[in-house]
């Protein structure tokens, strides 16, 4: 069994501009999705991220008080899952409720270094 990191980018803007009811529905959808993943023991962990952040460049010398990417590119959260292959991980990621809010996902396998 391999582990995959799913990076969730974008989608915040549309989410924050939607009605309270839609927001609640969205949280329910997340509950449903993650609940299924937890039940299947696919889920390892995952958290949403704040929009604020800091970026260090130039060997740590330059500090910018915002995330590396912004707007549609900003990383808004991550999920860590278990799957047998990239294909299966992709299949799982396709169910992400945040697509409704125009997010994009990047799936990366955790790399064993030795």
């Amino acid at each position, binding site marked *: 069994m391999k582990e995959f990191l799913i990076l969730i980018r974008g989608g915040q803007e549309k989410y924050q501009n939607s009605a309270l009811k839609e927001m609640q529905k969205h*949280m*329910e959808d*997340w*509950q449903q999705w*993650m*609940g299924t993943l*937890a*039940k299947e023991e696919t*889920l390892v*962990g*995952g*958290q*949403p991220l704040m929009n604020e952040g800091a970026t260090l460049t130039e060997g740590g010398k330059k500090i910018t008080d915002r995330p590396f990417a912004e707007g549609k590119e900003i990383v808004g*959260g991550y999920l860590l899952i278990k799957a047998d292959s990239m294909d299966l991980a992709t299949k799982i990621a396709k169910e992400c409720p945040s697509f409704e809010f125009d997010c994009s996902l990047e799936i990366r396998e955790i790399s064993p270094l030795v």
Partner: protein
Amino acid sequence: MKKKEDINKTLNNLFRQESGKMVAVLIKIFGTENIELAEDVVQDALISALETWKYRGMPENPKAWLYRTARNKAIDIIRRKKHSKTIDFSDPERKLLISEYTLATTMDNFWKEQHIQDDFLAMMYACCHPDISQENQITFILKSLCGFSTKEVARSFLVSEDTISKRLYRTKEYFRKHKIRPRIPFPEEINAKTAVVLRTIYLMFNEGYNSTHSDQLIRKDLISQALWLCKSLLDNKSTQTPEVYALMALMSFHAARVDSRVTEQGALIRLADQDRNSWNQELISLGSMYLNQAAFGKTLTTYHLEAAIAYQHCIASNYENTNWKEILTYYDLLLVIAYDPVVFLNRCLVMLELNGPDEALEAIKKIQNHKIISKYYLYHAILGEIHERLKASSKAVAYYQQAIQLTQSKPEKRLLKQKITNLNG
């Protein structure tokens, strides 16, 4: 200042009614190994309410406010303890509490109205596990599910607060060690498990009903809590068995008469001398309703029969008009279902009223060699009663004196002494 009193009163009532349910939900969230954490959250919520309401006044819906506060405090604790080993997050029900994506929604699901009552009942069944001694069961139920303070539980049992703390500790240790997962029993085990819960409720009731406490408040508290716990079993489809209805009927009939049993000075009044006008008719008709509902299915339990006996007493216009014949039939059935020498003794009293002292004497002789009964005060008190009817005064006095020696209860002693005085006078 009236405002402050109002707040205290509302909070006290709320606490009695809701704290047990909140504790049950929080135990489900944190696990039975964290009962103390659950109790702390409820305590904290109560203190917050007291502080906040004092300044901002009472909220429109105090109950909702209290639940909301407990929920928020639970979220704080989950966030704080996310990386500690205190809470077992590997449990499928708790897994989603770790992620912020799902924490709030998962938390809200735990607090949904339809789950709360189930969690409360599940906790009741868990407390009544046969491995936990009965006194520990009642202690824990009173403290954690009925919102009693340690001091109040101590007063209920007439023991020190220290003893109560030890009992609570033992029960919590049991839960911790065995990682008990409270749940409402499956249909096939519901009768057996409910029987244990009912025994504990009835014991709690009797602690209030029979106890010779001078503390009237505590006695009434115990009675109303027992009724309340039984009622919550009736409110749930999966736990409303005929036996529960029967106990509810029995306790309602008893509770209807509670005020007429004891004088204001704490002296016992015999059934024959009680003021029947002071019996609570509302409770009696409630009891009759429950007794009717207890009659479905094929189950006939001791509670059914005891309730039927109590019902006959409740509807008799006076002591002489009691339907002793009917009552004797119930006693006979009781002895068939579960032979109990104390029930047999009480049956002798019915014999005395129905067939007179000679037959009662014949009947009571049958258990004169019973080791425990011969040392039981009631045996001698009934013999005294029988001999009084036989006009054998000196024998009667001797039996009453023997009974006085054998009971610890001051009101019983007082009643027996009164009987002796009446005979000598």
